C-alpha cells in the first residue's frame, strides 16, 4: 500500500516562531489511517503548538499541512466536522452541567447520539448531571474526552489525554483508543509519558526543542526504554550475576545495595533477586528527556 496516499495528517515544513522564540521548526510528518500516533516530548517541546496549528487556532509562520487531504486553514470547518479534539489545558463552561456541555457542543455539530454519550459516560464513570464547577480536574478531563469522542470522529487529536485521570479510568481510555483504532479511525495524541505511549501507540514522534528528532515504531522504541532499579538485600549478592543478565547494565554495589539499569523485560531480574532476601526494591522511570539524551545525544536537538 502506498502510505502517502493513506495519510490522514500530512505535514510539510510546519513552522511557528514568536519573534526569537522558535516554538516549532520545519515539522515534516505523516500519520496514517487507523494508526495511533504518539507525539512525545518534554514540556515546551512544541507538542501543543503543533496541535493548535492543526486545529487552525494558531497560524503557521511557514509550511503547510493537510488533514483528510484538505488544507488546515482553508478547509478548517470541514476538517473539524470529522475531528474530535481534547485540548491540553481544558476549560469548560463552569455554570453548565455535563449534559449541558454535551448538548451545546452536540448542537454545534448538528446533533449527537445521546445513547452513545451515555455509554461513554458509564464506561468512564462520569456523573453527567454534575456542574462543571463542581467537577474535579479528573472529571473535567473525562467530560473533555466524552465531547471529543461523542460524534465518532474519523480523527482524534488529544493533547495529554490522561492528565489527571485515575489509573482505572486510564485503562478504560486505553481500551477506547484500541477500539477506535480497530474501527480504522486515527488517533494523534501528545504525551510526555513514555510508558503510556508504549501501551497504546503504533508509532511515536519525538519532539525536542521545537524539532522532530525521531519517528519510531513502538517496537523500536522499547529498545531505548530503560529504568533504574535499586535492590537492598540482606546478604552480599554478587553484582556480576546481575550484570550478566540480558538488559542489565551499569551495576554498582554498596553495603548490600545494588543499583543498575534495566532495559527490556524485568522477569530475569526479579527471579534472580528472589534467590536472596529482598529488604527493599525501588524503581525509577527516567524522564523522556533523559532517555532522549541517552539515545539521540545532545547533538540531535
Amino acid at each position, binding site marked *: 500500500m502506498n502510505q502517502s496516499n493513506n495519510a490522514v495528517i500530512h505535514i510539510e515544513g510546519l513552522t511557528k516562531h514568536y519573534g526569537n522564540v522558535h516554538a516549532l521548526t520545519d515539522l515534516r510528518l505523516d500519520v496514517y489511517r487507523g494508526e495511533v500516533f504518539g507525539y512525545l516530548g518534554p514540556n515546551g517541546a512544541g507538542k501543543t503548538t503543533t496541535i493548535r496549528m492543526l486545529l487552525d*487556532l*494558531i*497560524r503557521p509562520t511557514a509550511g503547510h499541512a493537510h488533514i483528510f487531504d484538505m488544507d488546515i486553514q482553508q478547509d478548517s470547518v470541514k476538517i473539524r466536522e470529522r475531528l474530535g479534539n481534547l485540548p491540553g489545558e*481544558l476549560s469548560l463552561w463552569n455554570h453548565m452541567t455535563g449534559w449541558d456541555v454535551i448538548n451545546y457542543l452536540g448542537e*454545534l455539530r448538528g446533533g449527537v447520539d445521546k445513547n452513545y454519550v451515555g455509554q461513554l459516560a458509564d464506561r468512564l464513570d462520569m456523573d453527567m448531571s454534575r456542574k462543571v464547577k463542581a467537577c474535579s480536574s479528573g472529571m473535567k478531563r473525562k467530560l473533555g474526552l466524552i465531547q471529543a469522542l461523542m460524534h465518532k470522529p474519523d480523527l482524534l487529536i488529544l493533547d495529554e489525554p490522561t492528565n489527571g485521570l485515575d489509573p482505572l479510568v486510564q485503562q478504560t481510555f486505553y481500551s477506547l483508543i484500541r477500539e477506535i483504532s480497530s474501527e480504522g479511525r486515527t488517533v494523534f495524541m501528545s504525551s510526555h509519558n513514555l510508558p503510556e505511549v508504549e501501551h497504546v501507540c503504533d508509532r511515536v514522534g519525538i519532539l525536542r526543542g521545537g524539532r522532530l528528532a525521531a519517528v519510531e515504531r513502538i517496537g523500536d522504541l522499547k529498545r531505548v526504554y530503560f529504568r533504574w532499579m535499586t535492590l537492598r538485600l540482606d546478604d552480599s549478592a554478587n553484582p556480576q550475576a546481575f550484570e550478566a543478565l540480558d538488559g542489565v547494565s551499569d551495576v554498582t554495589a554498596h553495603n548490600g545495595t545494588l543499583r543498575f539499569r534495566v532495559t527490556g523485560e524485568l522477569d530475569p531480574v526479579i527471579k534472580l533477586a528472589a534467590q536472596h532476601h529482598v529488604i527493599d526494591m525501588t524503581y525509577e522511570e527516567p524522564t523522556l528527556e533523559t532517555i532522549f539524551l541517552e539515545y539521540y545525544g545532545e547533538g540531535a536537538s
Partner: protein
Amino acid sequence: MKNVGVIFKRTLWDSRIGILSWGIGLGLIALFEFTLFPSISEAFAGMTELLNSPFYKAFLGENADAAAFATPAGYISTYMLAFVPLYMAVYAVLLGLGVVANEEERGTLDVLLGTPIPRWQVIVEKSAAVLVILLLVLLLNGVGALIGVLMTPELAEVSIGRIIEGSFSMLPITLVMAAMALFFSTLLRSRNLAAGITGAIIIASYFVTNLSSIAEEALGTIKQFSFYSYYSPLRTMENGIVWNEFLILSVIVLALFGLAIYAFQRRDIAV
C-alpha cells in the same frame, strides 16, 4: 448550515439574569427619579448660575441649563438619556468583552472552535445576542420610565411615544461601547487592556462632547471625532429621534464590528 443560531440562543439564555437585573434596576431608577420630578425641578429652578458653571457643563453638557432642566423634556433627557448610557456603559463593555475575550481568557474558545463553526460565526451570533440583550434592557428601562411618567402628573405633557423613542435612541450609543470593547479585545487579545482602552475612550468622549459646549473653539474639531457628539438626548425628547445621528452611530458600530471580524479571522487564539 445545521448549527445556525445555537451560539446566539446559548448567549441569550446565559445572559437572562443580567438582562433582568440590569433592566429592572435601571427601570426602577427611572421610575424613582421621575416621581421626584416636582421637588427636584423646583430645587434646580433657582440654580441657573450653578448649572452654567464649567463643572456642571462638563457633566451635563446641553442639559446643564436650569430652564431646560425644569421642563419635563429636559429633566427626562438628563436623567434617563444622559445618565442611563453612562450606567449602561459598564454592562455594554462587559457584553462586548463577552463576545470573544471572556471565552478566550477562560480557554473555552478552544473547545468552541473545535466544533465545525467558522470564527466569524462566533462573533456574528454573539454580537446579535448582545444587540437583543441591550434592546431588552433598554425596553425594561423604558417600561420603568413609562410607569414613572404615568405616576407623575407634572410629566403628563411628555407623550408615551417620546419615552419609547428616547429608550430606543440609546441603543446605538450603547452598541458603540460594546462594539469598541469587542474590537479592542479581538485586536489586543487582552481583556483588561481592551476594557481599559474602551473605558478611557468612553470617558474622554463624554467629557469632550460636554465641554465643547463651553469651549467650542478649543474642542470644536476634536468633538467631531467624539461618538458622544452624535447623541443628543434633549433634542430627542423635544423633537424625536435624531435620525442622522442614529445613522452615524450605527455606521460606527458596523465599522467596529467589521474590523473585529477581520482582526479575529487573522490572528492566533491565545492559550
